[in-house]
């Protein structure tokens, strides 16, 4: 017989085991897979359709005047170019919805699912650190969400390059936008994940948790629209500012989630 000696697992081992289990579980949940893939697919399809439509139908004079008024950044460009650039950028901002909605849903399912199936008690009875467990759970929702967002962006990019005008290509390949996708998407995802976990400790209904989490999306969309209409320009300063704010929010929300994620709290107070 082999000697069986139980002990706390190494952190990477724990993280890997939790991630694999969560991903298997998520892939087996058709509703969750649907809810995860729907937003990127809708945004991607409508984004590509809009850019394609603008490339085929030249805008009317009135449209162009309205556009110049709304987005001073594109004023003076060739109308067709301007419209495509505007649309391409506008959808890039909608892409920022993916790292808020998708990870939120995944995190909510991950925690509320464990509450509903009563798996938390045996899980907490193992010699794992709860901080490590929380970290592993966060990562399990963050990684696929970031991959989904980046993939959607890559497809969008490739399509715009293939069918879009010069202005549209310039808009989507602007270094600041690429940087935003690379840096802000993971930060935004992490924020949504831990927010989802935090909300799920108090709420037992997936839809209610999603609605509460949706309140976070509003200011982000607001900021995005403001930026397109030229009031807040995504210059280096604004980008840096957003990065710092997101990092601070990430730390704060992870800290709050860590406070809620204690063995006794989970077993005695989570309802």
């Amino acid at each position, binding site marked *: 017989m*082999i000697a069986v000696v139980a002990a706390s697992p190494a952190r990477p081992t724990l993280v890997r085991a939790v991630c694999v289990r969560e991903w298997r579980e998520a892939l087996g949940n058709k509703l969750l897979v649907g809810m995860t893939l729907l937003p990127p697919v809708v945004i991607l399809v409508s984004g590509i359709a809009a850019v394609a439509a603008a490339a085929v139908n030249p805008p009317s004079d009135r449209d162009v005047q309205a556009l110049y008024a709304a987005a001073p950044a594109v004023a003076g460009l060739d109308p067709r170019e301007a419209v495509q650039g505007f649309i391409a950028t506008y959808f890039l901002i909608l892409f920022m919805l993916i790292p808020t909605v998708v990870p939120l849903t995944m995190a909510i399912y991950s925690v509320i699912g464990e509450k509903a199936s009563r798996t938390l008690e045996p899980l907490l009875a193992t010699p794992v650190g709860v901080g490590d467990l929380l970290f592993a759970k966060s990562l399990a929702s963050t990684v696929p969400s970031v991959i989904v967002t980046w993939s959607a962006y890559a497809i969008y990019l490739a399509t715009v390059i293939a069918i879009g005008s010069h202005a549209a290509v310039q808009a989507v390949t602007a270094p600041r936008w690429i940087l935003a996708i690379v840096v802000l998407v993971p930060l935004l995802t992490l924020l949504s994940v831990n927010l989802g976990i935090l909300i799920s400790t108090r709420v037992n209904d997936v839809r209610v948790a999603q609605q509460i989490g949706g309140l976070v999306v509003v200011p982000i969309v607001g900021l995005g629209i403001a930026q397109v209409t030229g009031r807040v320009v995504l210059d280096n300063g604004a980008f840096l500012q957003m990065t710092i704010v997101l990092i601070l929010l990430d730390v704060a929300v992870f800290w709050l989630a860590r406070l809620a994620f204690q063995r006794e709290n989970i077993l005695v107070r989570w309802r």
Partner: protein
Amino acid sequence: MKTVVRTEKLTKRFGDLTAVDGIDLDVHEGEVFGFLGPNGAGKTTTLRLLCALIAPTSGTAEIAGHRLGRDDAKIRAAVGILTELPGLYERQSAWDNLVFYATLYGLAPSVSRAQAERYLRLMGLWERRDEPVVTFSRGMKQKMAIARAALHEPRVLFLDEPTTGLDPDAAKTVREFIVALRGEGRTVFLCTHNLDEADRLCDRIAFFRHRVLRIANPDELRAEFYGRATEIRLVPKPRAEDLVRVQAVPGVREAHLENGSIVVASTDPLHTNPLLVKTLVDGGADIAFVTERKPHLEEVYLRIVEPIE
């Protein structure tokens, strides 16, 4: 005798409610220790305390040589718990469930797989290892949960009402498993509200309702509350004079007729019973059976647990 679980004035309050009120326990290595109490007595709370899942309000405990509150991770590694509900990942296979937990208990991959196989076979679930647990019956899920609790070969196994809600067949498997564990020298802390089960499985029983009211082994309790009783079946049936003769035998505390038998309570049955048999035979009675009668533990239980209400 080695002690594996020792508590000192262990107490847990939830607001105004004292669920566990200053309990002192000593559980010995290798015994099946019954923790018997009605619903709401605080059994689950005690288990959570001893598995380092929740912290005591006051008091302390030492489990498998580790101090509660100081070496909690070591306690968790040294004990296994069968929770009230199985709590399995139902979308995943039996195999994946067990390997996942083995990994969380720090077992190396090859050991994890070996243990998962050992317990799946032991529980008769090996053939269904690749099926998602959601397709399993209540009894199979309970077996899975027990396998999960025992997978890392803990020194102490805490079982929270392991047969509640199971069909008789599954309950039997679970009880056989508990007996097998004891055979391996494993310590089992068995929470139950089922007297019959405690009686059949436990070396000692703690009667518990927020406080430990009494600790004893089942035979001691019977002897103390009733004296040993003997049932003597006569053919065709006892006559009035048989009863009178029995009542006159030295050491007999009480005797009465019951369904064609004479039921005798005596202070020292080992000395009294041979005398009883001789007296009856000498008196011309034909004896068919002489059996030891165990008074029902239910009554003992009610006498110990009820008065504090």
